[in-house]
């Protein structure tokens, strides 16, 4: 399957100063019985964003201008831990989040994010903390993430190198999933198979 290639993400960043963000927080379980729909953006961080009456909690970061328009979350440590629910990635994307920066990610979340074109950026905790402070101190602050160069550019112009598993990076850059990327090599695969099955004397 093909989708939008992810090469460069440039956008408003929101500081999300929480460690151990479990996927139950990202999307509470009661929304999981629903099929994937256009409402997923409203499920994102639902119980942190809204009160019981459905009113926005004014202190929640994504309810505060300008962070409401955030495309990048700068979190802390252990983002996306716990339940394997892929809906956590859908909710982030439906809201408009295209990348999350953190020291570590839940392993299953990390895989789910890459599969769906949400970029998880792993950086040392000191860097993550400094970036978060920077985007909190002078909003609206923007970050630029260059996947080709595996480099994040901070508001002050400082560049931070990060790494994404090579194959996942290739899929994202080309806008392909694993099957699509493999099929793009079909001529070479067929050539190889033909050679392999040709009896040698």
């Amino acid at each position, binding site marked *: 399957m093909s989708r939008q290639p992810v090469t460069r993400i440039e956008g408003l960043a929101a500081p999300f100063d929480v460690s151990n963000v479990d996927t139950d927080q990202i999307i*509470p379980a009661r929304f999981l019985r629903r099929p994937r729909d256009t409402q997923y953006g409203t499920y994102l961080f639902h119980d942190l964003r809204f009160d019981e009456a459905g009113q926005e909690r004014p202190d929640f970061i994504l309810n505060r201008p300008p962070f409401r328009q955030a495309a990048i979350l700068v979190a802390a440590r*252990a983002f996306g831990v716990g339940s394997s629910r892929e809906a956590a990635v859908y909710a982030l994307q439906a809201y408009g989040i295209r990348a999350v920066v953190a020291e570590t990610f839940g392993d*299953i979340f990390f895989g789910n994010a890459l599969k769906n074109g949400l970029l998880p950026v792993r950086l040392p905790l000191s860097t993550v903390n400094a970036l978060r402070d920077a985007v909190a101190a002078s909003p609206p602050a923007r970050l630029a993430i260059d996947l080709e160069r595996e480099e994040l550019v901070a508001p002050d112009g400082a560049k931070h190198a990060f790494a994404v598993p090579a194959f996942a990076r290739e899929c994202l850059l080309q806008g392909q999933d*694993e099957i699509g990327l493999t099929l793009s090599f079909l001529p070479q695969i067929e050539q190889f198979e033909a050679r392999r099955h040709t009896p040698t004397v």
Partner: protein
Amino acid sequence: MSGRTITEKIIAAHSAEGAAVAGGIVTLRPDVVLLNDVSGPLAFEQFDAMGATRPFDPARIVLVADHFAPAPDITAAGAIAMTRDFARRHGIAHFYEPGRGGIEHTLLAELGMVGHGGIVFGADSHTCTAGAFNALGIGFGSTDLAGALALGQLWMRVPESIRVELTGTPGPYVTGKDVILELIRRISSDGAADASLEFGGPGLDALPMDARMAIANMAVEAGADTCVFEGDAQSGADMARRGVPAAPAVTADAGATYRQRIAIDLGALSPLVAKPPSPAAGVPVEALRGQKVDQVYVGNCSNGTMTDLRQVAELLRGRQVAPGVRMVVVPATQKIWRQALAEGLLDVFAEAGAAVSPPTCGACFGGHMGILAAGETAIATTNRNYRGRMGHPESQVFLANAWVATAAAIAGEIVPPGEVAAMPGGAA
């Protein structure tokens, strides 16, 4: 060549490459692919979108309606219907609904589909429960498992391993739950990230299979990719009992490379309670003495076994759930439910004023069958106590073993279980 871990050996034996070294990428072929009514429907959509027309091997796919089952509403019923329909369309015999099944991870073991050296791919983070059986259970998202459904294989990075050496014999009221809460307390929620936890050592002798399942189940709460126990006479006998074809246990080589080694003396442990909102926030039960509870929940894929239900019954027999406290007991599978019935345990629970639920993931993940209101506190034998996990975001969950949970039900507050056992009222 240096020695290999259990994880590397099991992965190598299931890889197209025939070899596996931590950090490398392999093409991995699982023995079983497991999906539920939450992860399944999303995977089925992806399966169709990938252009797949039939699953790799219907006999090795297990579909379980357990999360929102029995269906609490129309939307959930729709998700189960999608799962049922996928099973029917593709001739998947292993489809289980309430009345026949139970919670997927406990059920999979009961069905005899996991044993020494096996690999389970599950679209659920607690697939690591299979580690109890000297097998690897690996959790994935729905898109990954759609690929596994179609092709019977996935690419995967071989995890490094962390060796957990168990010694000693647990004291009274110390269970598998306390072993894993102790481990997570020590290494925190991401201490085993990108790794497999390998449990072994002489302490295994004192840990029955149910205790091992309770430990393996929460490996993911330490951030682990997967986990595996050493096999032994107990796991071998367990396989024979469940009808799993005999297979030698997979052992680690003497020179295997571990990222870290952790020693746990079972004899030094006391019952622990993990405070909200983190499974890593374990403290001795004494530290929480007097903490009032509104609901006590015994069940889920970590602690809904016969071992747990017998512990509950031992304390509840001849005693009552405290006024103002609700107790919900959820046997993990239909077979366990019936065994508890046969042993008279369900009547002990009912007599004491506890409600017995059909097998389901239920309230553990905030689904149904015991959701908490604002301001309420629960103690549960489940595996996660995140904010709002069991209901309202302003409710809280303490995690503990079945002894501790039952003691709290009787006392109305957290107390050491030994004190409740010493109180008058228990049947001899």
